[in-house]
């Protein structure tokens, strides 16, 4: 567990280092994830220790977004004014986006796999 955590925090810091080095405005955590992903692809295996830490942490990913989400209590006025149009924009986007994503995927599967799904 500890070894896995050291690897995860190590890649997080590496990601922040790379982002700062090239002055990219992207999150260090996402760069760290891509660097770890690249390492796994090159080595073509996941060590049992790293796997254990990942399997231990990831089921609780939703828990880690709870505190920031509670921040919504500070925006009650904003939601009263704009909540309805936010909801409307969201629903329109879903009604168009869900079919479009599915169609693009199905069209590409057909074109590339010669008609069979």
């Amino acid at each position, binding site marked *: 567990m500890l070894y896995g955590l050291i690897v995860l925090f190590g890649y997080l810091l590496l990601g922040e280092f790379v982002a700062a080095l090239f002055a990219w405005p992207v999150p260090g955590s996402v760069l760290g994830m891509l660097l770890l992903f690249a390492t796994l692809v090159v080595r073509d295996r996941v060590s049992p220790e790293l796997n254990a830490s990942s399997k231990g942490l990831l089921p609780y990913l939703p828990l880690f977004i709870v505190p920031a989400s509670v921040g919504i209590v500070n925006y009650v006025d904003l939601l009263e004014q704009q909540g309805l149009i936010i909801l409307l924009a969201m629903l*329109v986007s879903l009604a168009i986006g869900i*079919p479009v994503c599915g169609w693009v*995927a199905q069209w590409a599967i057909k074109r590339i796999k010669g008609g069979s799904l």
Partner: protein
Amino acid sequence: MNIQHAWLAAWNSPYLGLFLTLLSFQLGLWVFRKSQQKPWLHPVMVSVVMLCLIVWLTDLSFERYMSSAKVLSDLLGPVIVALAIPLYENLRSVRRYWLPFVLANVLGGTVTILVAVGALWLLGGSSDVVQSMWTKSITTAFALQIAPGIGAIPAIAAAIIMFTGIFGAIMAPALFRLCGITAPMAQGASLGICAHAVGTSKALELGSEQGAFAALSMSFMGILCALTLPVLLG
């Protein structure tokens, strides 16, 4: 012995916010399981509503809550790095369909984001709310990392993402039937792109192939948006 004094000491403890977060999330998980995984009873939804009510109804201020629960937010960084492991493990399933998968994410993802942002802008949304809408198709963990850099409000972005996920998971099965989307890979990608984490649980209900592609789309969209949005909007 002074019970009132002891109670106040516990209520004012710096661990209170953290404890309430863990407790409400566990209750959320329980409600979600009991409800046969209804999207609108997602553990995050239940937990956040309970915590908001506590902050509203008691003298626990948001600032004091957050100073205690912040340690959980700080752990998002290493948890995002850990997503590299399932991404690597799911890579095999995408090999066969990598081009349709990438096209659906890039084209479909762009359409759904632009429609949402454009519609909100036309309806007269204020600029910080419109900026928050850009993050609608990425999972909250990623959105919270980029929100400050693009002028979005993290809590508004989180709320938009939560509700997009819930409505997307509810609307998707009917839209698939209506629009003739039958390929498991297409259903999974669509749910992952439009409804991220909540959509991925719905996709797992439809089948394991749907689930794998939904999880992959969620990661792919997250990476794509986290790398491009700060550059385009920052």
